């Protein structure tokens, strides 16, 4: 365990740690583009210069391992000059199109220029013009002019996705990122290249030009796209959710996430949601507030005897909600007919070796745990038989949030509609549900970004997450729905005592705010 001094601070690091890693871990600021903790060292940007005592010249921190007693500093004038003129070289051919560029506001060049640059350019030659708006594949757009050739994306396709689509072509100032003919950047992790691009060279087709990043707030949550349970940041504002990015978690997803998971914001937004409860009786559909519809359903449920009532659960809700609704059904309604709706059964155990799993539910383990706790062993076949014979008259369904991963949705709706009374709890709209006949209650549910809770991922890791924001204020959680359906009232949460400003957990230090209002929550590059 070598000891070293970084900017006057004694630090003990592991054998073989590079200087830049030690500095980032110690919370020191250091300029860098090409270095990324999840990728190999390239040493091409020459920005992470540090001064090592006893060494006459400044050195790059990313490719120098720490040895015993090293004295490192990157605050001296010599280092600052080196970074400044290194930046000048990066910006020789960089176009000044920040107004158009989607990265503006979270751009490494902007940050670094404001911190280390601020020079008058000394390049007299005209800028090298390259291709703009190059279509790399189904998800990513490239702007060669903006690229500073840090090679992060190339290393990503080489080392992480192992698809080798990207490469650097041509020489000198004409070199640019590109794909081979007939080999577009088309893999299940391609959008990570957009995340790691320190400039606006790679942009996501999905997010491109939809919002300026400084209009977005972000919050951490857990992806509900599959059983891996990647830690993600969702970006939203009052108009809705706009994008999802991964957050580093050593035990779950590292630095990456898949492209499928980036679509999870889509079923959260208002336009795809059920906003009011829809209740169908003999006289047709009528609209109702969600809470009222749940109370209305209670009128039916209280007269239903135990065996004619069944509950169908999808593994898309939190552990707390499962526990609440299952215990309500077991204790209040005296039924053990609780069924687990398994989507895509055949591909359930698939795993692509990186992150993607075939089980497209975030909380399968959690649901199984709750079912086990209440001693429920019912299988889907019992339900099919019960429905066919007419023994089950009333079915309560906690439908999927992410309908895209339920290919058997229509089939199951058809099967369940055999029941006399169908109480369907779901966040999203669906045509199939609106064309049902018989007595139907469609009650809007909250999605995973609108509630606190726990998901248990494929490895049994419990991940707690907090509410991000409210999209449909009227919608209920499963817990609330269970309470209302069993005839109880919701406890109105007591107002939280007002915290003084300096004790708020999300308080931003004034210094950081002064430095750059828009960048302070983005974290390191």
């Amino acid at each position: 365990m070598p000891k070293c001094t970084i900017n006057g601070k004694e630090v003990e690091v592991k054998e073989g740690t590079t200087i830049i890693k030690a500095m980032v871990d110690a919370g020191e600021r250091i300029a860098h583009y090409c270095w990324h903790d999840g990728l190999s060292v390239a040493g091409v940007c020459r920005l992470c210069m540090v001064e090592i005592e006893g060494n006459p010249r400044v050195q790059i921190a990313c490719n120098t391992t720490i040895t015993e007693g090293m004295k490192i500093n990157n605050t001296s004038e010599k280092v600052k000059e080196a970074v400044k003129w290194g930046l000048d070289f990066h910006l020789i051919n960089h176009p000044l199109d920040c107004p158009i560029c989607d990265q503006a506001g979270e751009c490494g060049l902007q940050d670094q220029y404001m911190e280390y640059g601020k020079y008058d350019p000394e390049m007299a030659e005209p800028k090298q013009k390259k291709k703009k708006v190059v279509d790399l594949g189904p998800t990513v757009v490239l702007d060669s002019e903006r690229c500073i050739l840090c090679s992060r994306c190339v290393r990503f396709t080489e080392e992480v996705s192992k698809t080798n689509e990207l490469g650097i072509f041509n020489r000198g100032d004409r070199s640019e990122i590109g794909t081979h003919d007939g080999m577009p950047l088309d893999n299940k992790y391609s959008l990570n290249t957009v995340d790691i691009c320190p400039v606006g060279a790679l942009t996501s087709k999905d997010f491109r030009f939809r919002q300026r990043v400084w209009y977005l707030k972000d919050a951490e949550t857990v992806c509900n796209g599959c059983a891996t349970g990647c830690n993600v940041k969702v970006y939203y504002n009052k108009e809705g959710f706009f994008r999802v990015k991964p957050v580093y978690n050593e035990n779950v997803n590292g630095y990456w996430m898949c492209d499928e998971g980036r679509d999870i914001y889509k079923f959260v937004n208002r336009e795809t949601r059920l906003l009011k409860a829809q209740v169908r009786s003999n006289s047709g559909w009528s609209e109702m507030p969600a809470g009222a519809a749940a109370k209305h359903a209670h009128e039916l449920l209280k007269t239903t005897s135990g065996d004619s009532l069944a509950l169908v659960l999808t593994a898309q809700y939190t552990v707390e909600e499962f526990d609440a609704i299952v215990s309500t059904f077991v204790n209040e309604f005296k039924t053990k007919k609780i069924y687990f709706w398994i989507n895509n059964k055949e591909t359930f155990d698939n795993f692509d070796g990186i992150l993607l799993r075939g089980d497209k539910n975030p909380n399968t383990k959690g649901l199984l745990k709750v079912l086990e706790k209440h001693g429920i062993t019912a299988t889907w076949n019992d339900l099919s038989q019960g429905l066919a014979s007419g023994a089950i008259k009333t079915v309560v369904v906690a439908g999927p949030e992410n309908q895209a991963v339920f290919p058997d949705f229509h089939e199951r709706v058809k099967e369940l509609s055999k029941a006399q009374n169908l109480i369907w709890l779901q966040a999203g709209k669906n045509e199939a549900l609106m064309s049902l006949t018989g007595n139907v209650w469609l009650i809007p549910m909250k999605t995973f970004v609108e509630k606190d809770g726990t998901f248990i991922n494929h490895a049994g890791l419990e991940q707690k997450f907090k509410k991000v924001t409210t999209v449909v204020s009227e919608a209920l959680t499963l817990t609330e729905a269970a309470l209302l359906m069993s005839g109880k009232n919701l406890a109105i949460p007591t107002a939280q005592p007002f915290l003084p400003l300096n004790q708020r957990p999300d308080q931003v230090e004034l210094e950081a705010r002064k430095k750059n209002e828009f960048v302070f929550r983005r974290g390191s590059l």
Partner: protein
Amino acid sequence: MSVMQNNSEKAKWYLPGVLGGLGITMKHLLKNLFNRKKMMTLNYPEEKYEYSPRFKGNHVLTVKKDGSLRCTACMLCATNCPAECIKITAAEHNDPSVEKYPISYEIDILRCVFCGFCEEACPVDAIRLGPEWQTPGVNGANFIYDINHLAYRPTLRGGIQTHVDDEERHKAGI
């Protein structure tokens, strides 16, 4: 606030003050009656005041040489706007050298405070505050100005041309 009171003997005589005031009124009356050209007031709306060219009136979106909008939809004006009256929707342009352009640009003129911050924030001289300031409207008039009004209203005669030209910049090697 402090009140100053003149309690001298002279101040108790109010009649000289009243007559002095009346004198001033009569002076102005006679001056304006016999010398109407130098009168300070204007007969609005027949006569209008000429403001300086720097006057901040209604917004104008400038156009390029080919008549298309100069605006790149960078949203700096909307970000800078203290009244939050600018609403822009960006979209991808077919021409890669343009790349991004606004498909809708709306200014809620009733919220606007005419501070000129949008003009100052604009990196490409796409928005200016023009000399117009009389924008009356009858009941139900639309005070949310769209691109059609901001860039191509009849008084602009086909649009005001911008100073910043990308092609010229690129030729100069920037």
